[in-house]
């Protein structure tokens, strides 16, 4: 007998939905899923409450910028939060902005800049949502100075699977607040946030470049500026060997003081922040195509060398002015740059970003770069940053450094690449390092257990059982790192 269109509880909510392949930003992990796009907090509550009642697993997703499996799920539905995206208000005196969870960094800075403010923390792309940034506690190039996203959040609303809303801050239910930041969407959905922003007196920052002959020199350069710089970021050439191991280029940036920019009125306009429309004559939307031609070891060795020598010239220039967007959102210069890694099934990239305490960072990163070269998997892009610790329950932050390495994934060599990551993970964990799940696709529960204190993990799981008694909030990441600890197999939930 022919079936009629199913009238299940979720369909009856009339929330826009689609069925599609939902993948991580790196394109090497993903799953088909029904995606619901609530347009308001009320719709979000209704969807979550229905899933809670029906025991349907929920994977929370913002802009899908996590590289790995944090934003997709082979079980249940995906909630895409981007429709819950109103900016609710701005307190100019205190510089505090109130937004819904689906508001993106792009919306936020375009709203704030003409008002003379800039988000205190922004990642390398303006696409992520505020809820996603809080849930993964993402950081920017100023992590060492102002902390990560969580440190800028003054208050937030959390929608629990039951549909109930909890408001939390450092004063109100601080235990919950500490757990929600960096909770990866496993405790509830962040529907509203109050965020502290930073007053700026120009639409530009002053940038100085410094070329470094090797990794240790670069870390010394950066360490020397931790006290005075506003932003610090180092680019690392993964191909350089021997005495040049880890050579690269440091960018040190400063906010301008009041009155320093005579054209502040003009530079604070959104139009001043436009990223270049073309690069070397290619329209920017097509730049990934020529990059694709260079996407192999020889091409990337060449590109990294060219960048190093250009960097040496750049370092001889006087410090220059660059727009906030131009300095911060490097990843947005080339839309869909990830397609340069190939678009066929199984191709793409992973980013491996260990965080290592400052005492041992240089030695660990050198070992890692050597390991990559020994095994024939050189990272096509390496980025070095300085971090500071924070007190969130599932934090990856520490007083030290991180080195983000982009690896091309070739389906034929995937196993070997994962083996290399395991070897690097051993080096990092032995040195007391940590990992960051917005980037990771390779760690297992065993590694996760080793860097998080056991009592913090126990606290988190107790809270999870209280707030999400049916365990509906999960993702492929959840099942990769938590489930082997909690359950012998998949949760006994109805497949949806």
């Amino acid at each position: 007998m022919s079936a009629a269109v199913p009238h299940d509880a979720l369909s009856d909510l009339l929330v826009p939905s689609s069925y599609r392949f939902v993948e991580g930003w790196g394109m090497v992990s993903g799953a088909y899923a029904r995606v619901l796009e609530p347009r308001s907090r009320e719709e979000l509550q209704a969807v979550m409450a229905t899933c809670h009642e029906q025991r349907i697993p929920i994977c929370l997703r913002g802009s899908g910028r996590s590289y790995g499996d944090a934003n997709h799920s082979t079980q249940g539905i995906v909630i895409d939060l981007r429709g819950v995206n109103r900016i609710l208000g701005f307190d100019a005196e205190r510089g505090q902005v109130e937004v819904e969870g689906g508001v993106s960094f792009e919306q936020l800075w375009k709203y704030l800049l003409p008002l003379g403010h800039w988000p205190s923390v922004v990642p390398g792309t303006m696409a992520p949502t505020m809820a996603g940034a809080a849930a993964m506690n993402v950081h920017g190039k100023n992590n060492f100075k102002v902390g990560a996203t969580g440190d800028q959040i003054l208050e937030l609303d959390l929608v629990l699977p039951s549909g109930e809303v909890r408001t939390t801050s450092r004063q109100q239910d601080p235990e919950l607040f500490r757990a929600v930041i960096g909770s990866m969407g496993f405790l509830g959905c962040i529907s509203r946030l109050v965020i502290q922003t930073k007053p700026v007196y120009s639409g530009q920052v002053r940038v100085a470049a410094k070329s470094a002959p090797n990794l240790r020199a670069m870390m010394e350069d950066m360490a020397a500026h931790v006290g005075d710089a506003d932003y610090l970021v180092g680019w690392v050439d993964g191909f350089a060997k021997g005495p040049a191991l880890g050579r690269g280029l440091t960018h040190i940036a400063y906010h301008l003081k009041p009155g320093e920019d005579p054209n502040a009125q003009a530079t604070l306009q959104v139009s001043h922040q436009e990223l270049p429309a073309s690069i070397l004559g290619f329209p920017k939307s097509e730049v990934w195509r020529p990059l694709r031609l260079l996407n192999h070891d020889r091409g990337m060795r060449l590109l990294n060398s060219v960048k190093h020598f250009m960097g040496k010239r750049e370092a001889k220039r006087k410090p220059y002015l660059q727009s906030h967007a131009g300095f911060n959102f490097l990843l947005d210069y080339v839309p869909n740059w990830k397609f340069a890694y190939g678009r066929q099934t199984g191709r793409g990239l992973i980013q491996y970003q260990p965080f290592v305490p400052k005492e041992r960072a240089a030695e660990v990163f050198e070992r890692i770069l050597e390991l990559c070269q020994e095994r024939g998997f050189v990272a096509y892009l390496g980025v070095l940053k300085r971090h500071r610790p924070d007190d969130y329950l599932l934090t990856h932050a520490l007083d030290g450094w991180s080195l983000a390495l982009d690896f091309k994934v070739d389906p034929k060599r995937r196993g070997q690449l994962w083996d290399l990551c395991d070897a690097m993970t051993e080096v990092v964990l032995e040195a007391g390092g940590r990992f960051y799940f917005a980037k990771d696709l390779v760690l297992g529960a065993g590694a996760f257990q080793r860097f998080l204190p056991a009592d913090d993990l126990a606290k988190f799981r107790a809270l999870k059982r209280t707030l999400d008694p049916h365990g509906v909030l999960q993702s492929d990441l959840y099942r990769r790192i938590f489930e082997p600890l909690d359950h012998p197999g998949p949760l006994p939930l109805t497949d949806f």
Partner: protein
Amino acid sequence: MNDPDSVHDAPVRRVAAQSTTAQRRGAIVVGASSGIGAALVRRLVREGYTVGAVARRGDLLDALQEEMKLEPGRVVPLVHDVGQVDEVGPAFATLAQEVGQLEFFVYAAGVMPAVEAQEYNTEKDQLQVQVNLMGAMAWCNQAAMLFHSQRSGTLIGIGSIAGDRGRKGNPAYHATKAGLATYLESLRNRLSEVGVHVLTVKPGFVDTPMTAGLEGLFWVISADKAAETILASARRRFWNTRYVPLRWWAVGMVIRSIPSFLFKRMNI
């Protein structure tokens, strides 16, 4: 926490799960109960596809399912009125999940009520907009989202040579088919960058319930022949708009080039 020996029995890594539906070949045909839609379902099922067959009339779908029982593929019938756009999201999700890796999506639903020469009937026009155009957009939007996300697939819309010009006969039919062709062209331009093909089919006279009883038809082909040609062109990816059979392409060229000051005096 730093005692490495205690945790070595736990797995250090687990590779993220891959999709499990990649092995099965699937298709969805909307408007599957008769005509070109039904013929496409038959051909795809014979080739081994699992085909989601959507139509308003459940008895015809049941008959089709019964007829295809012994073939290598399978029919997954779903009763749905394309005028109910609210149902499309869940309906598409149900079918897409059921059929496996979706290779083809076909929108073949269409109505052409008889309209008199001096008849201006808003009710009939509205029905045609709903079925021929609004339903197509609701369904193709869903298919486009899936194809875009999986970076593969072929989307086929059944337009008509009637969409090439606004003729005297049935203004709304011509308008909806013209609208469909333009809509599909936009989808094609959006989806081609991820390797998804969008094929607009413009059949001439095909022996189907829609043309039954009409006079003055010529070059009539069977629905099965039309389906064969459509599938072959969808796979070859040469044509973006395919007249079926191809000789109508020449007719279309001529008709599209007649200037309006002559066209309005002609009786075609």
